[in-house]
């Protein structure tokens, strides 16, 4: 660190190893599932395996969000409209947020991405693309109309997830370029500069 640490800001271990491993495993598995789904072989066995891995990761994240370390808990980054608006007004300041966790706007994208992924894996389980080989393992449990809707939703949500991820990465780049705050290194090492008076 060549830069002087400002008053009231300190370096803390914010993200525990579980959350960090979760994040980067999720990146690998979601990207793999996505590209295998769109461009992979017609026999989608690998897509299914990465999809199951995403299910396992989401289960872990829900458990971690309820019982994990404080910064990873959902309650820690669940903000009301007032706090969210207040934070939104500071977005245009070209200065780091030093936020001790997911900030109120970032939190929205975290919840949106997790929700979209939950819908994605759920619809995958019930999808039946009429090829008798890539059939979701639970497809037999529901009607063929439901299979069809699930398949359709699985396709549409894949696009939405791509949009969310692009926005997500763009936001990270915005923090780095415009606000001068590196969020990636904390997600790798756990250490982040945060303001003491918050959280």
């Amino acid at each position, binding site marked *: 660190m060549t830069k002087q640490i400002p008053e009231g800001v300190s370096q803390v271990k914010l993200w525990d190893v579980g959350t960090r491993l979760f994040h980067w495993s999720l990146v690998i598995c979601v990207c793999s599932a996505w590209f295998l789904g769109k461009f992979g*072989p*017609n*026999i*989608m066995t690998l897509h299914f395996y990465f999809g199951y891995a995403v299910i396992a990761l989401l289960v872990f994240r829900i458990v971690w969000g309820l019982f994990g370390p404080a910064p990873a808990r959902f309650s820690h980054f669940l903000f009301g409209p007032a706090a969210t608006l207040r934070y939104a007004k500071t977005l245009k300041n070209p200065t780091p947020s030093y936020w001790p966790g997911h900030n109120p706007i970032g939190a929205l994208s975290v919840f949106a991405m997790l929700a979209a992924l939950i819908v994605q894996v759920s619809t995958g389980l019930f999808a039946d*693309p*009429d*090829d*008798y*080989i*890539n*059939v979701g393992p639970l497809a037999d449990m529901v009607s063929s109309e439901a299979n*069809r809707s699930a*398949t*359709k939703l699985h*396709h*549409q949500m894949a696009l939405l997830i791509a949009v969310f991820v692009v926005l997500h990465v763009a936001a990270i780049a915005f923090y780095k370029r415009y606000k001068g705050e590196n969020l990636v290194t904390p997600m790798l090492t756990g250490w982040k500069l945060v303001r003491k008076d918050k959280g």
Partner: protein
Amino acid sequence: MRYALIAALIAAPALSLAGPAEKTVEARQGYFKLLGANMGVLAGMAQGKVDYDADAAQTAADNMVVLSTYKLAPLFAPGTSSDDVKDTRALPAIWKDLPGVTAKASDFGAAARAMQDVAGKGKGEMAGALGALGGSCKGCHTAYRAE
């Protein structure tokens, strides 16, 4: 009330189209349902949902080969895409790229013949050919069938 009227006005031309195009779509979907029925027999055995039966597997595979020789052109008559008829998922892309569709259909034919060679020889052999056969269905659906 006003909406009902508008709906009726929109529906009227669609209804007046009920005729040859819709019959073609019905027949086309019937053809693919037959493919599905025979695939269902093979997939059911491969997944162990029903016991493997060499004769039944061979019959299903033979049927697939027969179906693969069916001349598809009449089932894909012009004016029967998802732009023209309501209850079809056949994309207009089919009519813009007939060579591409033909290639997918011959992939299916080749996979069906490969299945015919092994379907009666044992569960493992049959299941081994199923991936390529199912893959040939997916290959065409992904490119030419709406969701």
